């Protein structure tokens, strides 16, 4: 069961933690609780996997090169193909989606040559062509995701 402290920590600090030497103490002070309570609550949220981590989100393509990739794979070959794809350390966020292009993942490599090499190798290993869908523009203004705790 999420306490009101849990909910505040989940909703109010997605965008930025206080950028000081003692961020958890600053949060505690702003909420009128102790630092230990904040640390304990974050630990509970993490242990129960309500939060993936407290960490950074990096602007795309500033470190390394990435692209979204889509593949169209017959249903009965999907798991096998996903297994092949997942063996590459360059793969993140590999999802099945309900479309004729049913396998979607993100590739991250150190530069475009490496990215190209990985893609060529993947097409060879899986036998399926890929859609190369690199980011051209990012319109997203991150205001945090407002969680609805009702129901």
């Amino acid at each position, binding site marked *: 069961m999420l306490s009101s402290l849990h909910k505040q*920590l989940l909703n109010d600090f*997605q*965008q*930025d*933690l206080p*950028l*000081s*030497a*003692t*961020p958890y*103490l600053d949060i505690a002070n702003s909420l009128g609780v102790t*630092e230990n309570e904040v*640390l304990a609550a974050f630990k509970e949220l993490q242990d*129960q*996997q*309500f*939060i*993936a*981590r*407290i960490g*950074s*989100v*990096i*602007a795309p393509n*500033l*470190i*390394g090169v990435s692209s*979204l990739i*889509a593949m169209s794979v017959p249903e009965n070959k999907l798991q096998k193909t996903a*297994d092949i794809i997942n063996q*590459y*350390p360059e*793969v*993140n*966020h*590999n*999802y*099945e*989606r*309900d*479309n004729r292009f049913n*396998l979607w*993942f993100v590739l*991250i490599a*150190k530069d475009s040559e*490496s990215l190209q090499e990985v893609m060529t190798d993947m097409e060879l290993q899986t036998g399926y062509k890929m*859609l*190369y*869908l*690199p*980011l*051209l*523009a*990012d*319109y*997203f203004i*991150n*205001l945090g*995701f*407002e969680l609805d705790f009702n129901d």
Partner: protein
Amino acid sequence: MIDVVNRQLIELLQQGLPLVSRPYAVIGEKLGLCEDEVLVRVRNLKQQGIIKRLGVVVNHRRLGYKANAMVVFDVPDSLISQIGGHVSRFNFVNLCYQRPKQGSQWPYNLYCMIHGKNKVTVLKQLDHLTESCGLHQFKREILFSKQCFKQRGALYQAIENQEKVINNG
């Protein structure tokens, strides 16, 4: 532009800020930097826009947001930045990107991600978005996620390996 120490710092921040009273001191120990130096570097990385945010990364699925739709539209290139700017203002839109059209097999250039507690909610939000941004006229597809094969890989392993080669001469 991004030196090796900053890359290592980013890699540690990606893994997560330690849940201790002085998290930057702990990160500093791993990098051989003092706490102040870590904070200065983090502030600079934020100022430069390399770190977009440093905060709580929530697990939407675990919090009951089980439906996730990637919606793709075919909009004219001349209108895309205006439409993208409009679409990204809705708080249920999690990401909003332009990507290249790939001919007739995939003629879409605007991508947005909508998280919701179920498909019905997501589709309602999409209706609202379509209405508000005048998106009816554009061809679109809605792709709900089904199974997740892999969430997060070794994000910068490729880069780290490269650096090890450089560092080892």
